[in-house]
């Protein structure tokens, strides 16, 4: 469920990037303070581990389909929330760059959904409340399962909110939520059980594993700070975005073909359907009355223009190839 660049607006993308960027800075500072330098290879190798583990699938019982672990909760339990967050951030960045799995601008959203939520919400508020120093194996198992399930639910909610705020997909909030949460509940339960099984396995095999995660407990208000900061930056970016293009469009419409932009804005979304019925496109398009003209002109001009664009790009690429080879 990696967010793609295609689904987000610049304001959502940029504000999430800005705020997760701040969390990255804060986490690196924390890690430097709290751990020695063995943390550097540890996080690196564990990141590669999660990456590799995600490529092996397990069978989801009864369905025959398969899933893989997310890794956020597992890492938070193993090496503490700050290191886990930074490691997940790196993994997501690599996935975005190497596999185009999740976009570059959408990176902030993905880091929030798959890194921040499990590490700084699900882990401290759920896992840490269930599992205390010296808790039994059953408690650890329960804690890991519930934390994973909740982490994935929150992540799915994050995807929905980011998509809805971006207004690229016109899926309404409630429908989208009903679509996403149950699917991710099913996946989450299996993933939670798997994560919990891995955690108990590793605790048995390496009882000194706590040594890796003697991390300071997360300040619980970090979540609140994050949300406020995100809303604030989002507000700023969307104000910026809304003031800028409009201004541009206004000034452009004065200098270029009149009606260019305004015709599209108004007329595409207004009641044209009845007027256009009789008009056919190529070859015998006609412009019968003034009212029609602007807007048939727009769509026809658009099609012609796109074709010409295609031809131009093809020509340019031919010329480039010639120039380069010759």
């Amino acid at each position: 469920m990696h967010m793609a660049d295609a689904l987000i607006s610049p304001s959502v993308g940029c504000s999430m990037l800005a705020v997760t960027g701040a969390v990255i800075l804060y986490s690196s500072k924390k890690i430097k303070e709290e751990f020695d330098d063995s943390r550097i290879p540890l996080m690196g190798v564990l990141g590669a581990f999660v990456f590799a583990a995600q490529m092996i699938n397990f069978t989801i019982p009864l369905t025959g389909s398969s899933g893989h672990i997310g890794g956020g909760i597992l890492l938070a339990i193993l090496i503490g929330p700050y290191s886990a967050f930074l490691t997940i951030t790196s993994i997501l960045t690599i996935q975005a760059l190497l596999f185009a799995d999740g976009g570059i601008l959408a990176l902030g959203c993905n880091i929030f959904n798959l890194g921040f939520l499990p590490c700084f919400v699900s882990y401290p508020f759920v896992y840490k409340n269930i599992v205390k120093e010296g808790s039994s194996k059953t408690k650890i198992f329960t804690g890991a399962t519930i934390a994973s399930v909740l982490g994935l639910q929150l992540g799915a909610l994050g995807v929905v909110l980011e998509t809805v705020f971006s207004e690229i997909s016109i899926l309404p909030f409630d429908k989208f939520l009903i679509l996403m949460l149950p699917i991710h509940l099913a996946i989450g339960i299996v993933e939670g059980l798997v994560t919990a099984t891995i955690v108990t396995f590793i605790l048995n095999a390496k009882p000194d594993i706590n040594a890796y995660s003697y991390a300071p407990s997360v300040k619980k208000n970090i979540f609140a700070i994050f949300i406020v900061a995100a809303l604030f930056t989002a507000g700023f970016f969307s104000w910026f975005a809304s003031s800028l293009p409009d201004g541009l469009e206004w000034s452009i419409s004065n200098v270029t073909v009149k009606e260019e932009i305004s015709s599209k804005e108004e007329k595409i979304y207004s009641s044209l359907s009845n007027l256009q019925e009789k008009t056919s496109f190529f070859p015998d398009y006609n412009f019968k009355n003034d009212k029609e003209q602007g807007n048939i002109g727009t769509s026809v001009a658009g099609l012609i223009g796109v074709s010409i664009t295609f031809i131009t790009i093809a020509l340019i690429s031919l010329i480039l190839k010639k120039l380069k080879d010759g």
Partner: protein
Amino acid sequence: MAKISSALFDIGYIDTLSRQNSLIHGIDTRVKVLTTLVFLITIVSFKTHEISSLFPFFIYPVFLIILADLPFSYFVRKIIIVSPFAVLIGILNPFIDQTIVLYIGKIGISGGLISFFNILLRFILTVLSALILVATSGFNNICIALEKLYVPKMLVIQLLFIYRYLFVLIKEASQMSKGRKLRTFNGKGMGIKVYASLIGHLLLRALNRAQRIHMAMLSRGFDGEIRTASNMKFDKKSFLFFILWSIVFLIMRIYNLPQIVGYFVVIILK
């Protein structure tokens, strides 16, 4: 399994592509990163009902692919592989918004369909630009460029480390899961118990390896700071690349070129 070997192959392939010599490969990686960002922001800033104005932007990926000697087919394959999520979300638009907003001949086009095409176009353009960035710069260079662009060093070092050990751990994982495959019969993936113990073993090995790497680092004087010998120089050519493309993007963002051209054609024909 198929997934593992194809991932390894893919990473290796991008790596090979990024090691070619071309005009584009020679441009400063920082500049390519920044240009990609400008491109991405420009693309996502389009409103959802715009289609024609997005087409001119294909000039950027096409230009780079040709000058950098990259294979078109590779990008087509990649785009198809990663498309499901974006397409899944986008494909709902035509069902939600069925108001007809324009006619082409007798065929009515709904607002939802238009926004779906818009999402597809955005998707192809953004994915292309990201893939091209890596294929013309190489992952390691991008990391170094990010550091020079003030991305926290801790994160950059993580990126380098993960990328380095990705190859080692994916190989280890694939050997282990191959061993597993040989011992299971339905060949359909595996149950949770078996899976968890396989991943657990992989994890144990990873933890031990991290310890050994740390030893190897310490024995060569590691003191917590990783210093590299790399250097990057800004040259005029790279600077020009950034400025020119940014201007082109801006022009294509402000003016709907196909619309304008088409308009003139219509007027002339009339």
